[in-house]
């Protein structure tokens, strides 16, 4: 089982960023990076713009401008937030494609790993065990 539709992708894969931005420890660090990251998910298709500087997550058109871009299947995104995807290995296998300001994007990676427990907890709290990897 995966995400049923774009709204679910936005709710969970966008939601984790919104939650992180609100976190007392991680939020300020994410904002300080000032990165605008476009995440383009496929199946279901949805594009989210994570503007860390402004602290906003919005659904946008795929052509929207951003500093860095990540493309992956929504399923891969779901696994990533559960700590099951190794970014360089996924990039080598073509499962995750990155472009733009890659250096800044990569510096985000260790911060995002800290969000794994919160993401898993949210899936559990919503009874979405079908999404657990």
């Amino acid at each position: 089982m995966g995400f049923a539709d774009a709204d679910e992708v936005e709710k969970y894969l966008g939601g984790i960023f919104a939650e992180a931005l609100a976190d007392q420890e991680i939020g300020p660090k994410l904002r300080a990076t000032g990165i605008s990251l476009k995440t383009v998910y496929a199946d279901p298709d949805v594009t989210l713009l994570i503007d860390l500087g402004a602290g906003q997550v919005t659904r946008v058109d795929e052509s929207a401008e951003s500093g860095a871009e990540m493309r992956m299947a929504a399923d891969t995104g779901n696994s990533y937030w559960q700590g099951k995807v190794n970014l360089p290995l996924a990039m080598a296998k073509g499962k995750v494609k990155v472009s733009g300001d890659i250096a800044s994007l990569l510096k985000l990676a260790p911060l995002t790993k800290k969000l794994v427990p919160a993401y898993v907890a949210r899936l559990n709290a919503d009874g979405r065990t079908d999404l657990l990897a």
Partner: protein
Amino acid sequence: MSGASMRPFDELDVSPLEFWSTTMEERDKTFSVLRRERPLSWHRPMQGGLLAPDIDGVWVATSHELIAEVSKKPEIYSSAQGINMEDLSEDIVEAASSMLGTDPPKHGSLRKVISSAFTPKRVSLIQEQIEGQAARIVDDLLKEKEGDFVKLVSKRLPMWTVFEMLGLEEELREETALHAEELVSWNDDDVAAGRQPMELLNGALVSLLTIGMEFAGRRRAEPKSDLMTALVQAEVDGRKLTDDEIGSFFVLLSVAGNDTTRNTTTIAARALQDFPVQRALLMEDFDGRIGGAIEEFVRWTSPVMSFRRTVTEDTVLGGHDLLKGDWVVMLYTSGNRDESVFVDPWKFDITRSPNPHQGFGGGGPHFCMGNFVAKMQLRAIFDQLLHRAPNLRVGDPDFLTGSFVRSVKSMPCTVD
């Protein structure tokens, strides 16, 4: 404030990149004081272009004894959280380090499967091939007569050996070696050529993983008699290597197999010129003395200058209380000049005996698995160079900036 953040930093600062841009001789003036007076010292996090580390400081072990102690206690000093003085994400550690970045029991089981692919038959075949290739390299050097020693000689044999052994297609070798070099050069402006350190490192890593995994895929589909085929087929205790593990091991082998032997060849060639008495001694009885000489080449070079461990439980090292999560850096480059172990450590002495250098590590489970291949290559290339190019003259080496590998980017040479 945590206990760690209240510790004062040592007055001798080994963290700035500038410190690692000087020569080994210059740096050892600092290490020598630390070894003798404070063999474990507390320093600011290493300066560098990667992640801003989430730590207050690092412990630096400079004595032979403490490096050995840390190396031999993997249950207390973990490799799984990173092996570099600078911070890297867990993903990068896992993808780039293979078994280097693992702890027991995972380390042992991975190493066992990988070792099973290095059969005695394969090893003896490698030896003959290395000797033939070393002769061809010196043939070419004698034709060229002058140029960059690294390009003409030192980088060729390790690159050829590691890729020939693996069975990597000829047309992919140059590119793979270039990425392997980039992977350890993130702090060097020349190599980075305008790229951000993290971008350089990740780009090189992803390229190597891609080449390695595609290569493994080709051997799965069509097995040959090479090491990659043996790796994809290897099975110990019902365990086979996953695609990710093979990709990661390919990265490790490409980097560790290329860089270390290349730099030892370059630096030892220069040492043999700087110490003509030692060279003459070696030539008096090459076969009898080359074994000991190679150990000294490795000690002298210290091709890997540092590795790091992370403390898994509160412990005591060198009289200091270490806390869980603390980083401990082992400076092999310092351990190999320890006055309490090596008499006159700055003397290049091919007859040094015993020579318990830490050039292949400080002992314990992570001791360099490829050391025998490195020794075969060094023996073969110096046999050829010293006997067939006796008038080889080399100039000053141009060193790479960084605290990880002691790498020479180029060194001019001529042969008459």
